[in-house]
């Protein structure tokens, strides 16, 4: 009921909502020149406030209004999302300015998408889970197709939309079965009811359909093979800042929701969903990497690479355990580490792609040739991000890999470990292809180009982030272990 609602717990969400409205009003009333810096400024200010509001509540552990959890797990994702979206906004200032005049709407949509992420990651009820995911999806469709007159943007959005709509319908069917079996939509309550006697007798018959159908939706959001076909197209066709968002925050949300639903609502079905995810993980990383190997567009290559990375993240969830005493490497903290590392890294890589697109018109491998001479900062930044993606220490990607490989080793899933190993190497192979283009190939005839200021800041922040996560792994380990512990009931 309303009177028991603790509004403070919803402060991050409210701040985002208000900021989105303010952005729209600013867009209405500010002069264009002012709006150009005021819009991103206001958006970033709102996100920073939301970040602070979420950070201040770190450590809380309660359910707000029956359908949202205010726990460390959720706050962790909120923090990551807020930071990443700030970076996205910084990276998009010039990119979007040159491509559309609906800037106010763009930033407002980004904020609403973030709001949806906030809701989805803290959802403790099938209804909020669905609504959060779906809001995120629908706003993402719009963002993907934002450059309406650009064929690629539009087609990307349509592909994304069609896959998304089907996936969410399938997921809903699974949810409805869960609801039918347990008579409730509350995740924790579902878990309790699933262990009740009358339900138990039917469990084996509902378990597979419910798990598979529900997993489809999450798998779509997290772009796991075989529900990934939208991803490369959407990532390539969408405005690149949007791609940054999709490939990091949106994907992370898929994992957050997947983890929460499976761990909170279906712990007793663990063997079912873990087996499913095991297969998906292997499939995802292998297929993603193999296709990425063949790409000539860097944007598309990164798209497939982020599919492959989804497989790596999934490893954490496959091998999730609840070791006593809140020790690290319980699997879930691997997901969390990966998400934060990946947020900086992949967003950074796509930001560089955006900058290269701005500077050279496209983002094929050829456009990256000799980048070190033409835009040394970009090349260096890209190198750092690619190395991080490859998992080279002391960068963020290493921390991530460490934390997802660890639980797999702990559980002694040797097959998975070997597949992951091979994939890590394959992935490094195509990352190095880009490095090779940037550093080894020399094209003296191509002109140098400059990087926009917002982009420069965003890249610096992301570089700092990538190094920070890698070197000060302990802070992030601390936070992710705490968050994971809360979720695992430790």
């Amino acid at each position: 009921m309303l009177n028991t609602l603790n509004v403070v717990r919803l402060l991050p969400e409210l701040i985002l909502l208000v900021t989105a409205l303010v952005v729209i009003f600013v867009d209405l009333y500010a002069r264009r020149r002012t709006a150009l810096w005021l819009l991103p400024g206001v958006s970033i200010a709102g996100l920073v406030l939301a970040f602070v509001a979420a950070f201040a509540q770190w450590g809380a552990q309660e359910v707000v209004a029956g359908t949202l959890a205010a726990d460390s797990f959720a706050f962790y994702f909120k923090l990551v999302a807020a930071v990443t979206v700030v970076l996205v906004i910084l990276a998009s200032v010039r990119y979007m300015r040159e491509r559309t005049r609906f800037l106010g709407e763009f930033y407002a949509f980004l904020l609403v998408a973030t709001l949806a992420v906030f809701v989805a990651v803290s959802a403790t009820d099938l209804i909020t889970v669905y609504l959060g995911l779906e809001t995120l999806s629908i706003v993402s469709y719009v963002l993907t197709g934002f450059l309406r007159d650009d064929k690629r943007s539009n087609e990307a959005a349509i592909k994304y939309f069609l896959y998304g709509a089907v996936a969410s319908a399938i997921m809903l069917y699974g949810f409805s079965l869960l609801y039918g079996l347990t008579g409730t939509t509350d995740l924790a309550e579902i878990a309790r009811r699933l262990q009740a006697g009358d339900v138990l007798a039917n469990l084996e018959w509902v378990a597979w359909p419910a798990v598979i159908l529900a997993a489809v939706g999450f798998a779509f959001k997290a772009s796991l093979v075989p529900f990934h076909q939208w991803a490369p197209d959407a990532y390539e066709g969408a405005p690149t800042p949007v791609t940054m968002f999709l490939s990091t925050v949106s994907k992370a949300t898929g994992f957050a929701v997947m983890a929460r639903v499976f761990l909170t609502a279906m712990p007793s079905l663990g063997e079912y969903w873990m087996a499913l995810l095991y297969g998906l993980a292997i499939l995802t990383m292998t297929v993603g990497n193999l296709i990425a190997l063949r790409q000539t567009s860097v944007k598309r290559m990164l798209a497939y690479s982020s599919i492959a990375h989804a497989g790596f993240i999934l490893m954490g969830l496959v091998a999730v355990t609840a070791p006593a005493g809140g020790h690290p490497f319980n699997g879930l903290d691997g997901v969390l580490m990966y998400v934060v590392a990946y947020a900086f890294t992949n967003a950074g890589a796509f930001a560089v792609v955006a900058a290269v697109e701005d500077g050279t018109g496209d983002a094929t491998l050829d456009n990256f040739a000799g980048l070190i001479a033409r835009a040394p900062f970009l090349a260096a930044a890209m190198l750092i991000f690619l190395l991080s993606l490859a998992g080279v220490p002391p960068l963020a990607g290493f921390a991530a890999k460490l934390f997802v490989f660890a639980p797999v080793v702990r559980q002694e899933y040797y097959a998975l470990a070997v597949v992951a190993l091979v994939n890590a190497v394959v992935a490094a192979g195509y990352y190095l292809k880009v490095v090779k283009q940037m550093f080894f190939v020399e094209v003296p005839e191509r002109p140098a180009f400059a990087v926009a200021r917002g982009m420069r800041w965003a890249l610096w922040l992301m570089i700092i982030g990538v190094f920070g996560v890698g070197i000060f792994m302990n802070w992030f380990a601390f936070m992710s272990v705490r968050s994971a512990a809360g979720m695992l009931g430790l």
Partner: protein
Amino acid sequence: MAFFERWVLTIILFWPLLASLWVLLIPKEQEDRIRRVSIWMSVVPLVLAAVLFVDYGTRFLGGTGGIQYEVQVTWIPQLGASYHIGADALSVPLIFLTALLTTLSLYYSARVIKHRVKEYFFLFLLLETGMFGVFMALDLVLFYVFWEVGLVPMFFLIGIWGHENRMYASLKFFLYTLVGSVAMLLAFLALYFKTGTFDIVKLTEMRPFADDIVRASLVFFGIFLGLAIKVPSWPFHTWLPDAHTEAPTAGSVILAGILLKLGAYGFLRILLPILPSAFAYWGFLMVILGVISIVYGAFVCMAQTDLKRLIAYSSVSHMGYVMLGLGAAGVALTGSVPWLASKDSAALAMDGAMLQMFNHGIITGALFFLVGILYERAHTRDLTAFGGLSAKLPYYYGIFMVAGFASLGLPGLAGFWSEFFVFRGAFDIVRIWAAIGAIGVVVTAGYILWRIVANVFLGEFNEERWGNKLWDMVGYEKATLWPLILIMFFLGLYPTPLVNFFNSAAVELLTKAGFMF
């Protein structure tokens, strides 16, 4: 001296990193300044490493062995991973070797590298930090971090400043090493889950998986893969000829001189003390691989026409000695050989392996410098293109002969002692295999004398092709090589200090592994 004790390693470790950042801040147009800065900055760790060498020696004489200069600062408390570094009788010489070869390489490169100077020196200094880190790390995570940090700059050094096939070679180098290192990471994690720590010292005390040979073997092979690729042992060696051949001169020097030692060092620092049971169990395998490497490498050398490639394959062969020595010690650990013989033999074999690590660094480093010097003039590495250089380039010939003879193990030069110790140790333990391995020594003499000396230095001088394009060694080249030549002579005549160092390290490691002396 408390300050020295506490900070010397850290300063050595991070000094090159600071230097590299300094280089980064210098505008790329000021190439001379970049060169000066990097060379002088690299001298600092060299001096410190020399001081360290001496200091450790005095301590050693004073009776304090084992790991010294230990620093342990909590890094990731959740994982029990810490910034834990230290140096013992094994690592101190290797640190010195690293500092020496880096300084020489930088000095040499300053004259040779004209293209993208800033990046070059930046990467080289970064590389030095990575190598130092591996030799100092006493924590598996830290070890892994520095292991990988060393990987990236070398990838660039090969890829940007290498020869025609540099891109292929750099990619191959990186990917091969990465396969190994990821496997190694997985094995480290397995160790962690068994013990709850990444600390090498603690792990050594705990000796995880001592009673579970299956899991111990799994972990062993995870780490083994990473190290053996780096060493490189046959059949993981295929990246090496490409990488060495295509790398720029200084890159080859570091690659052969230091990076290969990282793998061998890993065997001694991690595998032997932490997983002695598996090390012993699979010791015979290492013997076999070592012998195959020796013989195979040597025979392949005979078939080379590319001078640099020949030296590269000789590295495979020479690193085979290291493997043979280590494997023999492992076999001795099983206790399957007579007690009395194996006790000292194991230590001797390990002494030999360690000596070989150091010597090979010096000798092959020198050889690669020499090949580089020739290449700078002739722009070809084809053996058959030359002939009769002994008359035209006498100084060069002389230096080359010293290095070459050292390489083939001529008594009086450094190489002799390591080969001698290895075979002396191994003969007692794995007699037949050691005997087969000895074939390699013969073949080595063959390719040094027949392939190189006969083809390059003797015979007809091709006047119309080379005319006066080839000139003898000049000052900076001499300055680069003389320190190495001197060390070869010194160690050839008086190896005792180094042998003492290594012997104490070997004894200590074997003791930790459960060998009673």
